[in-house]
């Protein structure tokens, strides 16, 4: 058991989960206190001792399935024709009864499993479907997404959803009832998808062993998901994590304000104090620093090339907005537009994107980003309002479509502003390749950081001062 645990923890560390030695010890102690034959209990014991952040559960679940799912299936390795995993619950001798069914009968069975909420049957069907449609080739080093795709297209979940809808409609529900039923059906169809995915994972592990599969199946932690190629679901997950980060950013700047060292001399109080020491001003009294409200100007590229990142930066702007009073947000493609008011009025981020899509003057000509033009426009229209306590944060990949860079604008902004930061969602290696003109902008900024994922963004916030 100890070696399996050690391997598992090594895998968690490889994903990036911080597992300390004392947590390792705890996990071992926890495993000693519970029956090891109970998978669910082993899982919750490990989760409680090793994972201390809810966002990491997703990655943990996958790793657990790989490691401990595979162990039980170890004996089945190689026998592809024989393995639907463990679902002997329903008494379907896997690979025997089910394999004799036609495709239509199988989807009929799937429908029955889903509508009757028969988990065991669902697992058996998923196993058979993977057998039949995925065409897993032993020994191929793949992550299984292709197998998943193949199986799901053949199973045709849309048809399944449709049938569920129809059968529900036959019950004659009210409007609300139908809507509720639909939500319920969606959840059930998602369950099918999850089941097939798990089944494919089990097969891959049986084929190649946990250690080999772990590397390909590894699911990144939310903070390691790259903004530029994150899926919608991943971005939605990020949304949860952004809020505390925005609060931290706000707190950083507020902290800075409280602890300012230099302050003006309070002459009157110094003289008053000096009376105690015979007129010699021993202790100097200072004026309490008047907290200057920090200002942030957020200038974000929302063009197509960084659209996923842009969605994210808007979220960040929105989250900061709710913590901070003085945040002004601007978006640009080849024109630039202030969106502070839109962010302020909107109840949530979806409305914001909706309104932005309705039309802004951020797009002036052809919808290809032109940093030079956008920055110059920004400077002309709002440059006056950049003041000595304003921090300007620019978010973009600096892909200028071979327009003029006009880097002098940045120099001018930097002279007026307190800080000028540039966050680039591309890896450093990609800077200055193609039409990226980061090289021209970089020297004009105080700090230029690569900001591909939440971890890097957090690091940026942390070093701010």
């Amino acid at each position: 058991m100890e070696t399996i645990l050690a391997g598992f923890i090594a895998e968690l560390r490889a994903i990036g989960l911080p597992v300390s030695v004392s947590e390792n010890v705890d996990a071992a102690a926890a495993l000693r206190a519970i029956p090891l034959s109970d998978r669910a209990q082993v899982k919750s014991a490990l989760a409680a001792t090793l994972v201390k952040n809810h966002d990491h559960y997703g990655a943990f679940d996958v790793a657990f399935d790989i490691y401990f799912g595979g162990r039980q299936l170890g004996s089945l390795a190689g026998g592809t024709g024989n393995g639907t995993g463990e679902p002997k619950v329903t008494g379907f001798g896997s690979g025997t009864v089910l394999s004799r069914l036609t495709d239509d009968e199988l989807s009929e069975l799937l429908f029955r499993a889903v509508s009757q909420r028969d988990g065991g049957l669902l697992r058996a069907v998923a196993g058979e479907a993977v057998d039949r449609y995925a065409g897993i080739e032993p020994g191929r080093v793949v992550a299984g997404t292709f197998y998943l795709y193949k199986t799901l297209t053949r199973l045709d979940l849309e048809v399944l959803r449709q049938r569920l809808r129809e059968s529900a409609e036959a019950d004659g529900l009210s409007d609300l009832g139908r809507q509720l039923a639909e939500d319920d059906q969606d959840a059930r169809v998602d369950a099918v998808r999850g089941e097939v995915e798990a089944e494919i994972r089990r097969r891959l592990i049986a084929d190649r062993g946990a250690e080999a599969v772990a590397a390909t199946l590894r699911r990144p932690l939310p903070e390691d998901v790259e903004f530029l190629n994150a899926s919608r679901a991943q971005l939605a997950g990020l949304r949860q994590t952004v809020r505390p980060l925005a609060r931290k950013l706000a707190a950083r700047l507020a902290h800075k304000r409280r602890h300012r060292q230099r302050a003006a001399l309070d002459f009157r109080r110094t003289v008053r104090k000096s009376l105690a020491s015979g007129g010699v001003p021993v202790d100097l009294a200072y004026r309490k620093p008047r907290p200057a409200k920090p200002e942030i100007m957020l200038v974000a590229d929302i063009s197509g090339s960084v659209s996923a990142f842009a969605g994210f930066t808007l979220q960040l702007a929105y989250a900061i907005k709710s913590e901070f009073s003085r945040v002004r947000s601007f978006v640009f493609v080849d024109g630039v537009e202030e969106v502070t008011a839109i962010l302020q009025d909107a109840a949530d981020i979806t409305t914001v994107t909706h309104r932005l899509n309705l039309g802004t003057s951020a797009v002036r000509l052809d919808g290809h980003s032109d940093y030079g033009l956008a920055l110059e426009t920004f400077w002309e229209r709002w440059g006056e309002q950049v003041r000595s306590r304003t921090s300007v944060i620019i978010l973009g990949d600096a892909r200028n479509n071979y327009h003029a860079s006009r880097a002098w604008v940045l120099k001018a902004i930097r002279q007026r502003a307190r800080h000028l930061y540039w966050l680039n969602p591309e890896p450093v290696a990609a800077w200055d390749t193609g039409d990226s003109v980061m090289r021209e902008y970089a020297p004009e900024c105080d700090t230029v950081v690569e900001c591909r994922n939440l971890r890097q963004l957090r690091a940026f916030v942390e070093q701010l001062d």
Partner: protein
Amino acid sequence: MNGRADAVPGEQGDGQPYRFVSPELAGQSLRDVGYLATERISSVVFLGDRLRKPVLVEGPAGTGKTELAKSVALMSGMRLIRLQCYEGLDEAKALYEWNYKKQLLRIQAERTGSQAEAVEWTELEADIFSEEFLLARPLLSAIRAPDPVVLLIDEVDRLDVETEALLLEVLSDYQVSIPELGTVTSVQTPLVFLTSNNSRELSEALKRRCLYLYIDYPSVEREQEIVLRRVPGISATLTSQITGVVRSLRQLELKKKPSVSETIDWAQTLHLFGAQQVSTELVVDTLHVLLKHQSDIEKATAELTAAR
């Protein structure tokens, strides 16, 4: 493999009895006092006792985090000591404080007594810094309690990062160091629960000392069971519709998603109205029980009526 778990009923090295025999039984007793624990919850509660570790419970507001600690206290007949955290909480409020008024009285009593036999200063000092003059605050009283207690540290995330460190000694060693007195070690190990709404990231040091439990919104089935239990006399069909609506609402992007307690309130309201079926009109009319932000209500109303 199975035998190992059963081989340890009763005692551990430190001579204190375990409170729960198995996760299942812990879950069962929680159920008996009206808390429907999932498998994960009961297993973490069990482990918290076995490993003598505090349990950090995180999750959205209103999912029964505080309730869990209360129920554990109730089911095992232990006293509950509660420390409500807030910004600006300090040592004097959380750990201990010297009762300086009483100390002053003591010194004065010494003076006004017989002048002749004035007590030596050192003696007096030792005297006024003794247990008699110590005001125990929640953390210290949990440590000193002779009877088994449950210590609930509520909403840790409201503490400042600096004050969080106050808790560390108590959580890892179950002891409190008082400079004038020495170290107070626990008589019995209290069961400790910390709750957090995740409004800020807790420090690694704190997390490392705890077992972690995340309580999310319950599944539809579990929520149904909760409602059925909390609202006596409600019909099963109404309950399933109620939980269905709540689930749909939670999928919307709201400022504050409806919590379990709000679901119960809503079920109670509908039950009082004598509703047998949930209709769109009824939902829209009573939405304010479930959602507390005007913008959320508007959004949900739009969503519910748009489907028609």
